[in-house]
């Protein structure tokens, strides 16, 4: 059931979807763990599954999943609440006319056979739905996101054509607004009251951490080029103003007014508390870079010492020495 997909579709997942699913799961879990007498039953709780629908856009071979909403799962008929789904879909269509129902989501550790029934039932809305699975069990050793995207494919097994789930790879796509909110959630410290969210919502924490790590490298490139461009533009302005001062260029008052209004716009925040926090963050980042450089240097030094010992020391095998700096 878990081979990799061959459909060549590129999946892009937005963080909002992941946060929604995780939030849904946590809410239901904390609501069902209410009355104290059920603590006796808590020793073997049945795995809680939540269900919902994912919506987004499909352009060519790229499938971008933007948003999601919750659905009720009817245990008796093993199907999702169809009427609610259609109503919700129409409501979303009014706000986001481009969004279609792309598939559904659930929680659990792996896709099961019974999920195929739900999957097939959605095939009338979308001929090839996707199944997004969130693994709510907290595994701190795992560095990846606990989210898997499954597609359905027709494979011939024992001479019987069957639809089975196959895993697909996906990438995270963030819009600026999403990045800011994800950043904000990540930095909620336990001392704040507001972080009860991450404390009783371990999957959320893991998702957020993985998101930050994944987006750190990629998102910084546009920021870096933006800053570079800003720097070069400021240099041009500076040069121009210097030339004007020296008299090489004619004095243009309207331009001067514009420059002065631009300069007065920043800094937007000027208070002692802002300075404090800003400097603390700045120092934190500097320390991280410093640490990275220290480690780099130590590793080069270690190599150097090894080479030197091999080349010049009479007994070249020096195993078992405790190294201290």
């Amino acid at each position, binding site marked *: 059931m878990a081979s990799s997909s061959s459909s060549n579709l590129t999946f892009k997942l937005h963080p909002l979807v992941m946060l929604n699913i995780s939030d849904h799961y946590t809410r239901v879990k904390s609501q069902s763990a209410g009355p104290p007498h059920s603590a006796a039953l808590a020793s073997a709780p049945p795995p809680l599954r939540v269900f919902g629908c994912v919506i987004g856009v499909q352009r060519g071979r790229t499938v971008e999943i933007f948003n999601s909403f919750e659905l009720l799962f009817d245990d008796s008929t093993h199907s999702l609440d169809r009427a609610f789904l259609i109503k919700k879909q129409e409501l979303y269509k009014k706000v986001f006319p481009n969004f279609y129902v792309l598939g559904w989501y659930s929680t659990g550790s792996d896709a099961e056979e019974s999920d195929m029934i739900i999957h097939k039932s959605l095939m009338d809305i979308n001929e090839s739905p996707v199944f997004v699975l969130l693994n709510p069990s907290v595994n701190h050793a795992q560095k990846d996101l606990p989210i898997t995207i499954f597609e359905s494919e027709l494979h011939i097994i024992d001479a019987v054509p069957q639809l089975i789930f196959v895993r697909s790879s996906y990438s995270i796509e963030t819009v600026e607004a999403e990045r800011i909110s994800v950043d904000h959630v990540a930095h909620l410290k336990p001392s704040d009251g507001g972080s009860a969210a991450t404390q009783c919502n371990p999957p959320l924490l893991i998702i957020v951490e993985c998101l930050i790590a994944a987006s750190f490298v990629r998102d910084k490139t546009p920021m870096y080029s933006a800053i570079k461009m800003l720097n070069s533009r400021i240099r041009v302005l500076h040069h121009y103003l210097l030339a004007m001062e020296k008299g090489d260029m004619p004095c243009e008052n309207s331009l001067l007014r514009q420059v002065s209004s631009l300069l007065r716009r920043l800094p937007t925040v000027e208070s002692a508390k802002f300075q*404090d*926090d800003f*400097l*603390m963050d*700045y*120092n*934190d980042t*500097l*320390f991280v*870079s*410093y640490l990275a*450089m*220290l480690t*780099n*240097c130590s590793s*080069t*030094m270690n*190599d*150097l*010492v*090894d*080479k*030197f*010992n*091999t*080349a*010049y*020391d*009479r*007994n*070249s095998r*020096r195993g078992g*020495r*405790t*190294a*201290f*700096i």
Partner: protein
Amino acid sequence: MSDAVESIVGHIQSLSSSPIQLDQLHRFLNRREKQLRSESTHLLSALPQLDPSLHSLGYLYIVDGYTTAHDTKELPDEFVSIIGRFLNTCSANQIRLAPEKFVAVCRRLKDQVMLIQSPIRGVAPLRAAIRKLQASPEHLTAIHPDFLLLCLSAKCYRTGLAVLEDDVYEVENSKDLLLYGYYGGMICIGQKCFRKALDLLHNVITAPMANLSAVAVEAYKKYVLVSLIHLGQFIPDFPKYISATAEKNLKSYAQPYLELAVTYDTGKVTELERCVQKHQERFQKDNNFGLVRQVVSSTYKRNVQRLTQTYLTLSLQDIADRVQLNSSKEAEMLVLQMIQDGEIFATINQKDGMVRFLEDPEQYRSCEMVERIDSSMQRMMMLSKKLTATNEALSCDPAFLTKVGKERSPMLDLDDYDPALEHFM
């Protein structure tokens, strides 16, 4: 003045303007070296005809001829001032053509100055000489140890410290490095810069040594003591870049010191005093007794620091008892001194005699901290560049390649991967 000397002087005066002429002059002087030595009596009188700043090379040769011919005791009194003036005013380009002679002259100056027992007269000239001979501030010359020795004898520690500020990356002679590190360490101890002293002494101990050097043994003894004063502990394990000879032999020469280190760990002042008493003769013979007394007084500080880790507040009397001081007054003085030195953070409430230990108030949210980290990072980047360059140079070193090649050839098994090879494969 004899004709030969006259002609030499004439040559010097005419050939000292351009680099090509200087080369010519250099060759000429080399040929006439024997002559210079035989005519040494006339040489001194020839000196006033030459200007040390314009004719530095010639001047140097004449002075060198004079000093090699005469023993230190026979040198006239004005010798020191002549050489001093020469060293201060000579031109760096010219003397770099004959570095060994320059070093020899400096050494004679040092000997002379030590003989007449006024080492301070040699400090400034030698300092100027170092700057002129050095190709760059990272270069360790043979003059450095002599200069530091004079600083020590003359007690001009601060001048010595200024020269020690430069990091050394190039060394010509390993004996220079050993002496430089040893004298430098002593100067730093004198100025109470224990961290730098520890670094310098560490360099002496871990320098490559084929045979055990007496300097290294003395340096090791001081290293143990400074480590106790500055760090509060001594780790007897050697780092892996130490030479094999040092590793095997250093400990046997420094037994009393290692014993002292072990007793220091217990933190009991009486035990420490007993150990000091036992080995007092040995410490005094090695001229380390002053340091040993400093070690003993640092135990009190160490004990107070240990207290900060357990207690939040403590009364002065309690501190006196735990740290084994005699009275609460002494405890108050000690704590006050430590707060001033920045070794602990605390407040003393004199009304009820309580001391409250505080956390480090550094919040790391100031602009000065940004500048400090920035400058550290710049230094680290430079160091990293140097390390990578040295690493690459070492990989191409024939000694390294032959050793690694020898290890590989008997085994043609590709699975037996030597990690040293990974980097240049």
